[in-house]
């Protein structure tokens, strides 16, 4: 379904719907949960059976399972959820990583743990995104901070999930999901489609290309693929006892994302030469943007992608500054990662401005913290 | 037609021995290639399909064999005389 180009005044979640449609989503399965429900509602209106399928499943586990199933049917598919639903999806996310299924999962983060604050924003799921399922795997995750980015990064999530055959995430939050703002849909978008495997030639052995990302054998085209979450060889026969097969498979699953970090990672840099840099993402960076714009002693590195971890831009910033202030809406999840990279790269001090409870840190809270640090 | 047991697949569950209404099968006494006491076709001439053309009858053994070890084969001239 084509999306009309132009300028729109939309809600973040609605912009996500537009991004999904622009990317060519053909299957959406969802379950009502605040604050992500508008995405399901928006796609329910558009995916009418002919243009694609919208399905309201019995729970979030069923949603992501159906989405993975649909992806093997060869269509771009996605689901949207929030905290508790995201927790339910974790097992299947591991399955998608293991079976190399391209899917997009939107997590509009809300305050946790448990039911927590259904209507308030949080950034408490960033580590769950990376480590939520058992075993070693890598994912791709983006963190939008505006209505425009809800659109742009939804498109990016679809593109990278297709390109690298991994589950890709859009880690929005209640604040960005519900904020209203300007969305500009360009005339032309770069959309990456599925890299399908060619039709299998008679009964000869499956060709195993020597590359990290293998072409995708869509069901029903004669590939006779075996898709499994078990440790498997390249022709997908299960080998749960084989040490070497397991090592090669799991390492490749990680490598295909980690080696392409430079291609995937996105960030915004403001006043890069400053001796004090704020590192933040999502709605926690909104206040920091204002501070960095008004105060020339303070710069901002705003991460647009969180996983694979953007070591390069953080290392670059750390080499050129004395102090880093990490701001996020949890008790310090990305902080430990950022601190590790920053200290390794010569930054002397890494501090944390953490705020939970639903409101993003305000510019005055940033200034207060910076004053405490003796910067301004 | 006569039933033949593939000793590579048979796991000696002896369901064929139990299920055959004509008692064509019997338990094996020797260890086969797979390490099991594979069942044997001891009286193929009793089978409903002995010397029979056209649609096969009964087939309980083939449908019940958990290891797909039984298949139909043409009888030799000698067997046909039995």
């Amino acid at each position: 379904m084509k999306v009309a180009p132009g300028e729109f005044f939309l809600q973040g979640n609605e912009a996500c719907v537009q991004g999904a449609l622009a990317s060519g989503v053909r299957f959406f399965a969802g379950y009502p949960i605040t604050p992500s429900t508008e995405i399901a509602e928006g796609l329910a209106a558009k995916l009418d059976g002919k243009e694609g399928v919208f399905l309201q499943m019995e729970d979030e586990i069923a949603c992501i399972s159906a989405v993975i199933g649909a992806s093997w049917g060869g269509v771009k598919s996605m689901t949207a959820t929030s905290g508790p639903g995201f927790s339910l999806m974790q097992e299947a996310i591991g399955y998608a990583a293991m079976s190399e299924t391209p899917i997009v999962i939107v997590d509009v983060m809300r305050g946790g743990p448990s039911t927590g604050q259904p209507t308030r924003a949080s950034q408490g799921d960033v580590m769950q995104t990376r480590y939520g399922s058992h075993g070693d795997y890598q994912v791709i995750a983006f963190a939008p901070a505006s209505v425009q980015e809800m659109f742009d990064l939804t498109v990016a999530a679809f593109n990278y999930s297709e390109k690298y055959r991994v589950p890709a995430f859009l880690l929005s939050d209640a604040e960005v999901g519900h904020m209203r703002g300007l969305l500009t849909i360009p005339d032309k978008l770069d959309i990456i489609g599925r890299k399908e495997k060619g039709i299998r030639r008679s009964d000869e052995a499956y060709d195993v290309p020597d590359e990290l990302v293998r072409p995708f054998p869509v069901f029903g085209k004669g590939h006779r693929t075996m898709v499994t979450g078990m440790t498997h060889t390249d022709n997908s026969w299960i080998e749960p006892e084989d040490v070497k097969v397991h090592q090669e498979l799991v390492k490749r699953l990680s490598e295909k994302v980690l080696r392409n970090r430079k291609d995937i990672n996105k960030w915004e840099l403001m006043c890069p030469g400053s001796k004090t840099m704020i590192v933040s993402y999502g709605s926690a960076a909104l206040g920091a943007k204002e501070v960095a714009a008004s105060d020339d002693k303070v710069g901002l590195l705003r991460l647009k992608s969180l996983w694979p971890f953007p070591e390069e831009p953080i290392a670059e910033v750390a080499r050129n500054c004395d102090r880093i202030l990490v701001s996020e809406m949890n008790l310090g999840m990305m902080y430990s990662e950022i601190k590790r990279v920053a200290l390794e790269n010569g930054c002397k001090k890494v501090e944390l401005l953490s705020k939970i409870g639903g409101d993003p840190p305000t510019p005055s809270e940033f200034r207060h913290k910076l004053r405490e640090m003796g910067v301004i | 037609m006569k039933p033949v047991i593939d000793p590579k697949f048979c796991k000696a569950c002896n369901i064929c021995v139990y299920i055959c209404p004509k008692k064509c099968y019997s338990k094996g006494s020797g260890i086969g290639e797979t390490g099991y006491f594979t069942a044997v076709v001891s009286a193929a001439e009793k089978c409903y399909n002995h010397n029979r053309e056209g649609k096969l009858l009964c087939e309980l053994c083939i449908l019940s064999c958990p290891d797909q070890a039984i298949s139909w084969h043409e009888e030799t001239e000698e067997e046909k005389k039995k």
Partner: protein
Amino acid sequence: MEIFDFYRKDRWPHVFCPGCGNGAVMNCFYRAFNELGLELDKTAFVGGIGCSSRIPLYINSDALHTTHGRAIAFATGLKLAKPELKVVVFTGDGDLGAIGGNHFINGCRRNVDMTVICINNNIYGMTGGQASITTPHEFLSTTTPRGNKEYPFDLAEIAVAAGANYVARWTTRHVHELTKSIKAALQKKGFTFVEVVAQCPTNFGRRNRMADPTQMLEWMRESSIRRDKAKANAVDHVDLNLEGKITVGEFVDRNRECYEELIGVSKHG
């Protein structure tokens, strides 16, 4: 098509224990599939986790071996994304009725076109014989060493109540009837469900004085009762009690419109 065009002969002998009921269901399924002249390249097989859910991996076709209990949810997505595919789910009693119970009843309710074959062996076989939701009352398992104090589920009855288009139950002692029912299920549009009570001599029979698979088949023969055809769509209550009986037969055969017809899914793959 010969049986080993349908199954992957290079993977034989399969992983199942001697005397396992899965093999009989595989025979019957191949028969039904072959006699209907269905095509492997236009069919996808989905399984969850468990012994019976391994069957799709042995079939020479597209197979989706999924997470525990979610096979029907995966199959729903696959079918709606590629409606021209025929989708068949192989599952077991624990996979379908316990961890996947919600997907099962909602699958029946939603009525997406797929055939679900549940091999009910009354036990968690792959993990070594723990009581399942269909373990008969007072039967022994590793987790019910003093006898199972719970009462079992009747999967076929649930499927009827939840709205499946076709529901039948047979045992592995009824191979011909089972083949016929699988054929009927494969031909029918909508959610079709065939439950097969199968023997697990290794983990179920062994602890319940039926260590020999033939003893288990004899148990099924003795305790199964054919459902009275005159009762039409009525539901029989059938738990696998010690004294109870296994009612076998076709339980329901109706033509509710299936989901993809109602929403007008067209090809968009």
